[in-house]
């Protein structure tokens, strides 16, 4: 049984933006019945501003495929096409509070469907990774170009990860050697590029930041404080200032200052290095 996050369950049991969009001006399709999952994405894009006014989906697939589709539509609605194109499969997984590693290909499917829809809208040829490139995995129809991209974008180093992200190699296994050599080749290229270029992360939006801070507080910080009878609550985020209110025993604790710096270092480590924690009266 898969361990799905609450967010995945929420988007699976009550998916958002379901169905076809009659006045869609961009449609992207990926996957097939044979592969076991498929996503059809409908977009309504404002031709003047290129803002995504509405997004709907139809998905055939497992729980995480449906949740990833629902998450994708929520993430891109209201953004401009260029903003939304920056969303990676990892962003979709993060939005869902993580996916089991074997299910990462569901987030890749979301990203690919959006890129296909945009290519169609802009009159560009559909992303041809599927058609050009050399077919590596015959069982799931995955080309070397697709494998190169996920290896690059997700900093992948093992065959198992490639399978988790693209399904390639998950069938008969005849392509395993070929996949290994592609991984080695791309990692060689990555090592030669300047480290900054590879590692730089795009700045998070405020919403992403708040979600991430909340997740770290729930998973890492609050359980620690609660053990000692204390607690903390996120009040607001202003730029990089994280405003928190201490609760329980923390309010009267002489080492409240220590607690504050502990929270700060956790958030710096796990969310963003330039966050500052400030205590406010809650």
């Amino acid at each position: 049984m898969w361990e799905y996050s609450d967010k995945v369950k929420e988007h699976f049991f009550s998916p958002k933006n379901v169905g076809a969009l009659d006045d869609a001006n961009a449609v992207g399709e990926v996957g097939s019945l044979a592969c076991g999952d498929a996503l059809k994405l409908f977009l309504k894009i404002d031709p003047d501003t290129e803002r995504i006014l509405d997004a709907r989906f139809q998905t055939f697939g497992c729980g995480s495929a449906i949740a990833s589709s629902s998450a994708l539509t929520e993430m891109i609605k209201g953004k401009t096409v260029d903003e939304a194109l920056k969303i990676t499969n990892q962003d979709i997984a993060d939005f869902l509070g993580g996916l089991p590693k074997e299910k990462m290909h569901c987030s890749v499917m979301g990203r690919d469907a959006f890129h296909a829809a945009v290519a169609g809208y802009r009159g560009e040829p559909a992303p041809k990774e599927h058609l050009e490139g050399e077919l590596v995995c015959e069982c799931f129809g995955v080309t070397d170009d697709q494998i190169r991209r996920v290896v690059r974008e997700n900093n992948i180093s093992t065959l198992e990860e490639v399978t988790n992200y693209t399904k390639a190699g998950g069938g008969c296994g005849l392509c395993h050697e070929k996949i290994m050599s592609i991984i080695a080749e791309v990692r060689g290229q990555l090592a030669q590029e300047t480290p900054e270029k590879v590692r730089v992360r795009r700045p998070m939006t405020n919403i992403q930041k708040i979600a991430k801070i909340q997740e770290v507080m729930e998973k890492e910080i609050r359980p620690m404080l609660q053990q000692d009878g204390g607690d903390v609550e996120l009040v607001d985020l202003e730029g990089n200032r994280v405003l928190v209110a201490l609760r329980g025993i923390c309010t009267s604790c002489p080492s409240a200052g220590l607690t504050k710096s502990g929270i700060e270092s956790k958030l710096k480590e796990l969310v963003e290095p330039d966050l500052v924690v400030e205590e406010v009266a809650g």
Partner: protein
Amino acid sequence: MNVVYLDNNATTSVAPEVLEAMMPFLTQRYGNPSSMHSFGGSVARDVAKAREKLAGLLGVSPQEIIFTSGGTESDSTAILSALATMPERREIVTTRVEHPAVLNLCKNLARFKGYTVNWLSVDKEGLLDMNEVRSRITDRTAVVSVMWANNETGVLFPVEEIADIAYEKGALMHTDAVQAVGKIPMNLSSTNIDFLALSGHKLHAPKGVGALFIKKGTRFSPFIIGGHQESNRRGSTENVPGIVGLGEAARLALENIQEENDRVRRLRDRLESGLLASIPAARVNGSRRHRLPNTTNTGFEFVEGEAILLRMDDKGICASSGSACTSGSLEPSHVLRAMGVPFTAVHGSIRFSLSRYNTDEEITYVVEELPKIIMFLRSLSPFGRENLSSVCIAQ
């Protein structure tokens, strides 16, 4: 929430009578049946009684049974013993739809030990072609291993007939009967079956105990070598509570075998026909004529099995799927693919497997809830719109 458990081919509940029979051996009567003192030695009599009860269910004599740790050990023991005692023969005949306990062992023997494996195909109903069976079993065949009942579809194979063919060619016959024992009547002494594997936890005994039938006179080479237990055929101190539990479970199975074939079959049929009547584009995978009374494998086109299971789970209904996404692998069920079930249905196939503990009310509940789940998932799916009536797309 009450759980409606329709996954009895995966595992079963321990019957209350079985637990009761086991309890003394988990508490006061912890002795070793091999001991010379009566505190331990008296336990040997209970092990012997359990062996008699199991022999009664199979229609064999107690000396022909050894207790093991489960179905997989029994399968390995039988096949490896057959190969070891027939060194001049280097071929195995088995089917493409075996349980991994046999399938992967045979693949392994082919790959690393140089045996030739003749894989028997199945047709779209999951049935064997007896002409192919006859042509594949030759005087080079050491062992024929054919499951009695398929775990995914419940389809039954004519193992007694196949055993006759093996006998004619001087090959040994093994059957993985893990899903069949206790569900259909058996009288092994009148057959040419040499080995039969069974597992306790599929018939309301606990996990971790199983047995292997070895026909009297069949040459045998042990798998686990150690002490003199099981008449020198399997080392290791006996799993006394498990063995006593399996004996009691066998007695209950024999007592209930008519109910299994009447009431459980009726429940299964009602479930199946109820689902087929209320859900369009649904199909039964596997022969409905040659099938266990407790199993139905139903394919719902244009939806995916894991999504169905998750929503069923939310309603407290337990079943299994042959979908790729429910296993660690990406490939859907090897059984359904061997049967040539179309991809449109293979991903959305659900196995319901009942037991004598299921009730009419439970089946009614599932027949009410499942159509809603399938309709909802179809309303999300990009496929099948042209094939389905508009009624089921609206939600």
